[in-house]
């Protein structure tokens, strides 16, 4: 199926060498420091990772906590996309809509989603709804901005072809603007997913949550179990990497036409 060239192997080899070096350095430091409360050794972290289905610290397993976080991220992410894509299409399409909405968007966009947490708790209470709100907020803007840019990048000639065939405005949006902007929208979703993933961990660290990777990390911190924290961080990193790889693969698979004419 997929043939990895020698060049690719060499490229990956370089990256893996650095990771190996970092791990060795970590392990050496842990041996020297010899204090679990400052730096847990890799073997202890690996111990947690190698038993992902076992209860951790008397609570849910690593897998169960990961699934909770993933579910929250996906829910918030899809809510954000469902809102950001149509709004982005409208802003990109109509300078009138842009004139109304752009200033508000530019002011709201730089605010870190976590800053909304107190409001979120006040409006939605402690728990899942607040977390979903924060994730959706974080994921919303990258998708929106990229959708707008994608629409702006549509070739006028494509729209003219649709007009020549007497397409209605809705048909122009559906058959030309949306597919033409989709590679950029996809890029926005890729960025958004990474942000959503960061938001979920941060949001779960707040009081009142009872599950999720962020919760697990904070709970382990309170109990002084730094190996669990390390394991949680490794899982977060791997899932982030995996999602990014999926988005890249999707890009190569579906948008091979991008930039080619």
């Amino acid at each position, binding site marked *: 199926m997929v043939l990895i060239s020698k060049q690719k192997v060499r490229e990956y080899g370089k990256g893996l060498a650095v990771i190996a070096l970092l791990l060795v350095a970590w392990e050496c430091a842990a041996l020297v420091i010899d204090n679990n409360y400052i730096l847990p050794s890799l073997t202890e972290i690996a111990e947690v990772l190698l038993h992902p289905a076992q209860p951790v610290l008397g609570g849910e397993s690593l897998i169960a906590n990961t699934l909770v976080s993933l579910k929250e991220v996906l829910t918030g992410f899809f809510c954000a996309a469902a809102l950001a894509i149509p709004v982005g299409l409208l802003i990109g399409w109509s300078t009138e809509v842009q004139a109304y909405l752009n200033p508000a968007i530019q002011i709201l966009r730089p605010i870190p989603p976590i800053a909304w947490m107190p409001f979120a708790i006040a409006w939605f209470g402690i728990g899942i709804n607040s977390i979903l709100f924060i994730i959706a907020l974080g994921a919303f803007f990258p998708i929106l901005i990229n959708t707008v840019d994608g629409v702006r990048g549509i070739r006028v*000639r*494509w729209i003219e*072809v649709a007009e020549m*065939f007497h*397409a209605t405005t809705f048909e122009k949006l559906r058959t030309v603007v949306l597919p033409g902007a989709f590679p950029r929208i996809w890029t926005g979703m890729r960025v958004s997913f990474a942000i959503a993933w960061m938001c979920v961990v941060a949001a779960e660290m707040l009081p009142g949550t009872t599950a999720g990777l962020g919760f697990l990390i904070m709970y382990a911190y309170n109990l002084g179990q730094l190996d669990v924290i390390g394991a949680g961080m490794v899982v977060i990193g791997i899932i982030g990497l995996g999602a990014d790889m999926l988005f890249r693969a999707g890009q190569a698979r579906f948008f*091979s036409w991008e930039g080619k004419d």
Partner: protein
Amino acid sequence: MGGEGLMAESVLSISGIEKTFHGEGEDCPALSGVSFDVASGEIVCIMGPSGCGKSTLLRIVGGLERADKGSINSPSGLLGEGPSVAMIFQDHALFPWLSVEENIIYGLRLSAQKIPDTEMQRRVDDLLSLIHLTSFARSLPHELSGGMKQRVSVARALAIRPSILLMDEPFSALDIFTRRELEDEILRIRQELKTTILMVTHNPEEAVYIADRIIILSERPGVVAGIITVTLPHPRSPADPDFIRIREEVAGRVKGRNEVGCAIQHE
């Protein structure tokens, strides 16, 4: 076989078309009173110095631009009954995310056309074989050569069975061999489908090679400065002395540089 005998009825009547573009500061007059008729099944080429409003005229006929004055109508009543005009641009303007087949079917899928699915597929299959690209039905445009792309663009325009095909310098981006091949293909399509064609070109040889009539516009603002009827039988040979004589006459009449300090840009 030329256009003789096909000149029965006029399918398009252009009269008194005026158009001025209002730019920043200065106005840019493009057309001032262009009038001519196109007969059914005829191939008419529009020529003129660069910037004389040739493309603007074509875009007005195609409904992409509005004329300030004048009218475009069809005595035979073919225009106005749904989408009966289709345009082919200099760049193929294919949708890069759609396959060859999906590009051809694009216009048919829109609500402006009410065509049953089976009929759609039949038309696409016919057109694919007409342009000899049946085996590329599933390919994406970027996998095709320039000439193949322009053939798909022609098929996409023909799919809606237009009463008039408008072509805006359709082959000028292609190399000379591909160009001649496509000109022959256009002649063959006219022969088979009796399509009426209105084409803008800046190449006198191309005009004499395929046109029944050549309409020459003056410098901007454009008016009809002359009409040359080409009665040479097809296939025409560019080496034929008569061909050369007509080509030189056309080239001689398309002259004058555009000195007006404004430019019209259609992308």
